[in-house]
């Protein structure tokens, strides 16, 4: 019984993933489909967190044409998530053009061209989100130029990009709850991402908020600082959870609970222990064999 429920939850997540894919295709064209990932699916789930009714149907999947899959027709929240995803990707690519070396910059530029039409349509649908995104990313770029060591402020600038999405909530109460949920999820994503990039940023001399906050030079991050960072990350996940608890029970209960209660803290542990990425796991394995 219990295991069936888990399978059902996993199917739900996959149906949401497919649902977002179809929403991207329908609203923003073929190219938009390629930006689909789990992050944006999570965003779509968060935006429809309180939804009571979710309709489904079976549709053909572009990735495996011979099979029809169960797809969520997510309605307005999914349409919004699709538009936001396109806008976020476009701005992320712009930053990549500015930050990265020639080759990666070129790829990002090409990606930007590829998405141009989809982006145009997304801006037409959600002009305020586009402006909001641009303002906040510009503010973030300014903080980066100043090599800001204020972890909260840089994370806040990023977190507020996501928190904006709460505007669409049905009631003022839901808006406040969702804003808090999105804010702390965003804060967590920004910081965990920064930690994940710590080594490569250090090597390439790129700005990293954690390097700046803990005034680190070439040395490894000390245990005390690491524990401090761990606590602030976990604190954000617990505030996201306490916000989520206040939302009315919706269709996505099981999946979202799973991600918020278990997924975020587990990823936090893995990233901080350096076991998250495949190459990290490989590196650890090499270290172990070397010591044997």
């Amino acid at each position, binding site marked *: 019984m*219990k*295991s069936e429920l*888990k399978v059902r*939850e*996993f199917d739900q*997540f996959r149906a949401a993933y497919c649902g977002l894919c179809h929403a991207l295709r329908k609203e923003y064209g073929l190219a938009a489909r390629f930006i689909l*990932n*789990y*992050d944006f*699916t*999570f965003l779509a789930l968060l935006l429809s967190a309180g939804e009571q009714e979710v309709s489904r149907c079976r549709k053909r999947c572009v990735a495996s044409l011979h099979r029809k899959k169960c797809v969520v027709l997510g309605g307005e929240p999914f349409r919004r998530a699709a538009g936001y995803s396109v806008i976020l990707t476009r701005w992320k690519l712009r930053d990549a053009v500015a930050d990265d070396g020639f080759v990666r910059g070129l790829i990002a530029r090409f990606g930007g061209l590829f998405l141009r039409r989809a982006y145009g349509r997304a801006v037409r649908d959600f002009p305020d989100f586009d402006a909001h995104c641009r303002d906040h990313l510009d503010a973030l770029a300014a903080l980066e130029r100043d090599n800001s060591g*204020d*972890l*909260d*402020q840089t994370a*806040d600038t990023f*977190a507020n990009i996501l928190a904006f999405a709460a505007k669409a909530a049905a009631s003022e*109460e839901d808006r*406040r*709850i969702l804003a*808090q949920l999105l*804010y*702390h999820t965003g*804060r967590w*994503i920004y910081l*965990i*991402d920064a930690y*994940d*990039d710590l080594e490569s940023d250090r090597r390439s001399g790129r700005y990293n908020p954690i390097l700046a*906050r803990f005034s680190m030079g070439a040395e490894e991050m000390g245990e005390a600082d690491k524990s*401090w960072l*761990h*606590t*602030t*990350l*976990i*604190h*954000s996940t*617990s*505030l996201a959870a*306490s*916000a989520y*608890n*206040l939302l009315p029970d919706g269709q996505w209960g*099981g*999946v979202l*609970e*799973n*991600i918020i*209660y*278990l*997924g*975020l803290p*587990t*990823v936090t542990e893995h*990233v901080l222990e350096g076991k*998250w*990425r495949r190459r990290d796991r490989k590196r650890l394995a090499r270290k172990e064999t070397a010591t044997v």
Partner: protein
Amino acid sequence: MSDPYKVLGVSPNASDDDVKKAYRELARKYHPDNYHDNPLSDLAQDKMKEINEAYDTILKQRSGGGTGYSPGAGYSGGGSASGPYAQIRMAINNGDLATAERLLASQSNRNAEWHFLTGSLYYRRGWLDQARQHFQQAVNMDPNNREYQMAAAQMNSGGFAYRGGFGQGQGRGLSCCDCCTALMCINCLCGG
């Protein structure tokens, strides 16, 4: 008022023990301690009130009308307030963070309470790194103050007053197997 059984998430045929268990689980989840200084604390209080009332009603119905029982009541936010900080405290409690910030900035005497209130202000905003530094500073300057100690302890624990629902085998029954699903779900979140 809505159906008290629905509020507690149990069937009207549930045993007294089951009702009690459901009540306790929810009361722990929405306990004011979990929402201390949280910008959503008013919503959690409403929820807590609703749960208490539902449990009360069921108890009364089942005992044929008895005394009112409302555990979890009697929470009041904030500690002692005196001097120039009373106004700041009130502003923070009312969620008027801009006023609190302005008043804090105008204080020249940056004592333990100043750091505590600055920490509270940051906490409300979700600026947890700064909040923790200021709470810690408040404790350093006035190590015997219970209020400061509790705030600092909460920050040191990562805000976990409530751990129900997972890790203790209670709540909605998430198992370790879920971790895999959860990981699959958010794999790539930081894949950059």
